C-alpha cells in the first residue's frame, strides 16, 4: 500500500513542480565575526537568564566544585557514563571506599535492565561537545559511553563544559565541528532546565525533564 502511495505522491510532486523554477540557495551567512564580548561571560549571562547555575572553575578544581554542588543539593546518587575521561576523574574523586555521598552509579547496561532505578536517581552528570554563546545553549552529543537519558530523566542535570569549546553562534559551531559529515543517533541543544508556560503563561521549571541544570565551566 505504501509503495503505491509513494509512487502516487512522487508523480503528483513531479507534476506540481514542473512549472516551479528552482529557487537559488540564499548566499551563505557571514562567518561569525570576532566577538567583541567575552564568550564565557555572554554564555553565562544567557544561561543564567534561563535559570541555569553556572560555576566557573579552574580546570583541575572541577571535582571540588562538584563536591560542593552535590553537598549543597543533597544529591545522594549520581548517574554517569563509564569509559570517558570525565568518568575516570569522577571515579578517582569518589572511590567506592570513600565518603558515602554521592553514590556513583555507572550507566553500564541497556536501559531495559535498570529502567526502574533510572527513574529514581537524584542527578546525572555528562560531558558536553561545546556550547553556543549568543543564544545560550549546551551542545550534547550522547555516545555509547554516555547514553541519552542521563541528561533527561534525573531531576538534576550537571554538565561539564570546557571554556575553549564555547562558540559564538549555532551556525559557527556546526560549521567548525563539521556536523554535515555525519550526525550521531541523537544530538541536542539544551538551554536551561525543562520548563512550561502552558497555564496562563506562568513560567514553571521542571516539567518533564530536569528541574535544575548546573553547568561547570572548566577554564584553563
Amino acid at each position, binding site marked *: 500500500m505504501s509503495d503505491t502511495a509513494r509512487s502516487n*505522491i512522487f508523480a503528483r510532486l513531479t507534476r*506540481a513542480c514542473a512549472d516551479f523554477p528552482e*529557487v537559488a540557495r540564499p548566499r551563505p551567512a557571514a562567518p561569525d565575526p570576532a566577538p567583541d564580548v567575552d564568550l564565557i561571560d555572554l554564555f553565562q549571562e544567557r544561561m543564567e537568564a534561563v535559570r541555569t547555575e553556572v560555576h566557573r572553575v579552574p580546570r583541575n578544581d572541577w571535582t571540588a566544585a562538584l563536591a560542593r554542588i552535590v553537598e549543597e543539593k543533597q544529591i545522594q546518587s549520581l548517574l554517569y557514563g563509564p569509559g570517558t575521561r570525565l568518568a575516570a576523574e569522577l571515579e578517582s574523586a569518589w572511590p567506592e571506599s570513600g565518603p558515602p555521598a554521592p553514590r556513583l552509579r555507572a*550507566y553500564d547496561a541497556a536501559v531495559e535492565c535498570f529502567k526502574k532505578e533510572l527513574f529514581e536517581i537524584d542527578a546525572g552528570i555528562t560531558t558536553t561537545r561545546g556550547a553556543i554563546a549568543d*543564544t545560550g545553549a549546551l551542545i550534547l552529543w550522547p555516545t555509547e559511553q554516555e547514553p541519552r537519558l542521563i541528561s533527561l530523566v534525573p531531576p538534576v542535570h550537571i554538565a561539564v563544559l570546557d571554556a575553549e569549546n564555547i562558540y559564538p553562534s549555532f551556525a559557527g559551531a556546526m560549521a567548525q565541528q563539521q556536523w554535515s559529515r555525519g550526525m550521531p543517533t541523537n544530538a541536542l541543544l539544551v*538551554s536551561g*532546565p525543562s520548563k512550561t508556560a502552558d497555564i496562563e503563561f506562568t513560567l514553571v521549571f521542571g516539567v518533564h525533564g530536569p528541574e535544575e541544570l548546573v553547568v561547570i565551566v572548566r577554564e584553563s
Partner: protein
Amino acid sequence: MRPTDSFDFAGNVSRALADRQLRRNLRAAMDTLIEKRNSVFPDPQETEALRERGAAIKRRALSRLPALLAQLEEKLTANGIQVHWAETTDAANQAVLDIMRAHGATRLVKGKSMVSEEMHLNPFLQRHGIESMETDLGEFIIQLDNEPPSHIIVPAIHKNRDQVARTFHEKIPDAPYTEDVEELTAIARRTLRRKFFEAQVGLSGVNFAVAETGTLCLVENEGNGRMCTTVPPVHIAVMGLEKVIEKLEDIPPLLRLLTGSATGQLVTTYFNMISGPRKPGEKDGPREVHLIILDNGRTRILADPVMRETLLCVRCGTCLNHCPVYTRLGGHAYGFVYPGPIGEILTPQMEGLARAGVLATASSLCNACEEVCPVKIPIPRLLRRLRRDMAAAADTADPLERLAWKGWALMNRVPLVHALALKAGALLGDRLPAVGPLKAWTGVRTPPRPAARSLHELVRREQGVQNE
C-alpha cells in the same frame, strides 16, 4: 468539537464573541506573546534580513521537493529509520496502528504534533483500543477535557488556572484541588512520568527534516518530546511532506525564526536532532524509528503557482497572535485544526471551498499576519485569491446576493440609473425597513445615513467645490 459538514462558522463566531472569559484569557495571552516576540527581534533591519533568508530557504526546498524527499528517504533508510508514505490521514492513521499492532502495543505517549491533530489520531487509536496519551502540558489539559487545541503553540491558552484546577481535580485520580500553577504542573509531571515509564511506543511531530544527513529535528521546552523519542522502545514520527529542508546549515536561521516568532525565545530548552534508532553498543534510545510522511492535499496545493506559498509555513503561530480576528475568537470557532490566518488559507485548500471556504472571510485584510510571518507568506494575497475563487464558484453564492451585485454593476454602468438610485437613496435611505438580508447586515452595524443631496448635485448647484 469535531468538524462536521454542517460547520456553522457564523454561530461559532457569535458564541465565541459572547464568551467574556474567553476574550479576557485570549487578550492577555496574545499581548504577552506579541511583547515577547518583539523583545527577541529588536532590530527591524536584521529581522527583515533573517526573514528573507528563512523564506528563501523554505522556497528553495519547495522548488526541489521531489528531489529533497527522495534524498531524505535515502538518508533516513541508510540511517536505519523506516519511511512510510501516506496519501491521506486515514492511511497515516492506519500506518501508526499497523506499527503498534506489530509490537502488540496498547499504550502510546505523544509529543505535540499538529499533523497528528490533522489526522485526528487520538480518537482513531481509542476506537482501536489503544491508549494515546498527550504529554505536552497544554495538550494534556485539553485531552482531559476532550477538547481540540485552540492555538498551534499554546493549545490550552483559552483556559485560565481555575479552569485547569477544576479539570485536574475532577479527572485525575487523587489530585487535590489547587490553583497554584507550580503544583498543577507537578501533578502533571507525576502522572505523566508513570506514562513515559510504561509506554511501548512514543509518537512525535517533526519541525524540520534535513535531507542532507537524514535528521529529524524537534523543538520543545518541556522535555516530553525527548521522553517520547527516547524512553519507549519504538518511536514513530509524523510529518507533512513540506517539512523537508536541504542542509543542516539551513537550521540555525530557521530555528531562530521559529522560536523567536512562536514564543519569543532565543532558543527553546531543547532542540532535539534524531538521526537513527539505537545502534549496537548504545544503551538507550528506541530500537525502531519510523517516519510517516503525509500528503493530505499538500501536493495539490503545491501545484498552484500562487497558493503553494501556503506550504512555506513553519507552524510558529505568530500570525494567530497578531490577528485581530483570532484574538477575539480563539481557535475553536474556526472549526478545524488550524485556526487563525494560516488556517484561513490552509483549511479551505485541504477541505475544499464548499466546506471551509467561509474561513477565508474571517479577515479584515489588515496585513498584520504578513508583516510578522517569519517566512513571509503573503497571507492577505492568498485570502483574496480564495475569495475570488469562491465568488467564481457561482453555484455556491446566494442568489439574492448575486442579484444585488448585478444591480450594483448596472447602477455603475448607466448614469441615469445611478442618478435615480442616488435620489431614491436620499429619499428612502433612513426609512427602509430592516428585513431579510438588510436586517442581517444592520443587526451588527450602524446603518449609513445617506445625505439629502448627493455630492454630484451639490457640485452642480454650487458650481464647483468651495472651501476646499
